[in-house]
């Protein structure tokens, strides 16, 4: 068929239909995001109407109590902060170490592939299973009791797979040319990993850490399983103390019959959300800051 004119009616008709399909798809995608945002907004309005009035200084300064107006999150906030801190200190070095081993040192054989597949599988294991494991090993066998340390060790198990996977991704993103440059100067493997691979991969690894820790903040099941308490009326003084965390405290308040406690719980949820958002913001800030050092151009 030879082209005799620029305008081809049949083609133009088809083109119009193609463009219509494109627009239709765009609208569907738009609806999807509106739906998600709308539900989030609804949730937030619901919580805010109940909880905003209860966002008072007492919420931070008081321990839990039988009286709603005297109830606070003091021990739960301390517990959450302690738990994240210790969990991060345990999980990050182990996770990064495992990722470095798998990416840089592990021989390419069946065992390695078996481990790799199972790390991904572990990320999908329900967290309550880790709770049972923690109860058996950390609480009972190692006799750590229902302490922050036992909780943090358990929580480390929950987030380790995520940290390992994120760290491996980050290490794999290091350009090959950078490694070669280092090796070509006579650097050993360890020097190359420490001086080039790790710094370059650090933003990605930290992002993985913070995102998995914000998951850990919201986790309740494994901590209930190992027996974290809800009614703690003393300040935490170390990793071997009994503890509770925000979501457990919130859950406890919601399960009480009085309406006032439900509102205190709503206020608690606002705090939990605030902590989560702060951590995610920190992750983004950290990532951008570190990345800027690399991409000076």
């Amino acid at each position, binding site marked *: 068929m030879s082209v005799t004119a620029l305008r081809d009616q049949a083609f133009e008709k088809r083109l119009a239909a193609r463009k219509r399909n494109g627009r239709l798809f765009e609208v569907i995608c738009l609806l999807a995001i509106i739906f998600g945002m709308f539900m989030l907004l609804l949730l937030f309005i619901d919580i805010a109407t109940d909880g905003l009035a209860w966002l008072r200084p007492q919420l931070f300064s008081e321990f839990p109590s039988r009286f709603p107006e005297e109830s606070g999150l003091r021990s739960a906030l301390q517990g959450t902060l302690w738990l994240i801190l210790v969990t991060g200190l345990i999980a990050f070095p182990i996770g990064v170490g495992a990722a470095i081993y798998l990416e840089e040192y592990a021989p*390419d054989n069946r065992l390695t592939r078996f481990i790799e597949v199972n790390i991904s599988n572990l990320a999908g294991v329900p967290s309550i299973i880790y709770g049972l494991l923690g109860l058996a090993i950390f609480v009972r066998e190692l006799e750590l009791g229902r302490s922050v340390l036992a909780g943090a060790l358990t929580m480390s198990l929950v987030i380790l797979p995520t940290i390992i996977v994120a760290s491996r991704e980050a290490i794999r993103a290091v*350009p090959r*040319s*950078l*490694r*070669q*440059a*280092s*090796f*070509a*100067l*006579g*650097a*050993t493997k360890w*020097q190359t990993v420490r*001086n*080039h691979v790790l710094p*370059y991969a650090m933003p990605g690894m930290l992002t993985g850490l913070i995102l998995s820790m914000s998951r850990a903040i919201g986790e309740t099941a494994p901590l209930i399983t190992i027996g974290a308490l809800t009614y703690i009326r003393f300040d935490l003084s170390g990793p071997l103390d009994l503890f509770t965390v925000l979501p457990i405290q919130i859950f406890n308040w919601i399960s009480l019959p009085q309406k006032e406690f439900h509102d205190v719980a709503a206020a608690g949820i606002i705090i939990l959300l605030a902590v989560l958002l702060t951590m995610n913001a920190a992750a983004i800030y950290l990532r951008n800051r570190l990345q800027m*050092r*690399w*991409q*000076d*151009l």
Partner: protein
Amino acid sequence: MNSPSSNGHVALEVNRLNFYYGSSKALADITMRVPTRKITAIIGPSGCGKSTFLRCFNRMNDLIPGTRLEGEVVYHGENLYTPDVDPAEVRRRIGMVFQKPNPFPKSIYENIAYGPRINGFKGNRDELVERTLRQAALWDEVKDKLKESGLSLSGGQQQRLCIARALAVEPEVILMDEPCSALDPIATLKIEDLMRELVQNYTIIIVTHNMQQAARVSDYTAMMMLTDDRKSGTVIEFDDSNMIFTRPKDKRTEDYVTGRFG
């Protein structure tokens, strides 16, 4: 065919070298002597194993899993591939410049100082950085911004920074894998001038696709081709560059350098 007319010193001696990626033979039966303080160019069509061959000289192929080498690469009387030779030591003595400039995402100063530091350099670092940058003809352009990132330089400057970085660990041999293929003609010319300068003190082996470049800068040229079964590459002719480019002995070399093929 594998010993050029000159009878100067030999920097590297390749004996009956075969190289394998897994089970496929990439290089077959290469024997040649690389003369000291000369520029030796390796030319040949794409995919004939020039870069693979170049990386045999500093054991960079060791980094690729599943590779294997037979034969010898002798340097100062010792086979680089004997088990007790550490590849890190080899790479310190035989430096490398890559196809695409790959400075570290660190300051210009750190790019130079890194190699000496990891190799335990104890002397005056500032002096070393200045000397090396002067050697690489980069000092005047960067002396006021040593703290700036190596990545802030232009492509040609980055490549000279990479050459300086390689020089800083005081190698005797410098391998260059198409060092100008990512550069414009002016930057290329600067690198070529620099190579002529450096060859007074260093042995240089350069892989290039650019025939004019090989003819311009090199003293000797090795012509590589696929073997008759078209599976592995080998050196078919190694001679004075003048000979290679004016009176090649091998018909295939003649066809290649005159542009009739490849």
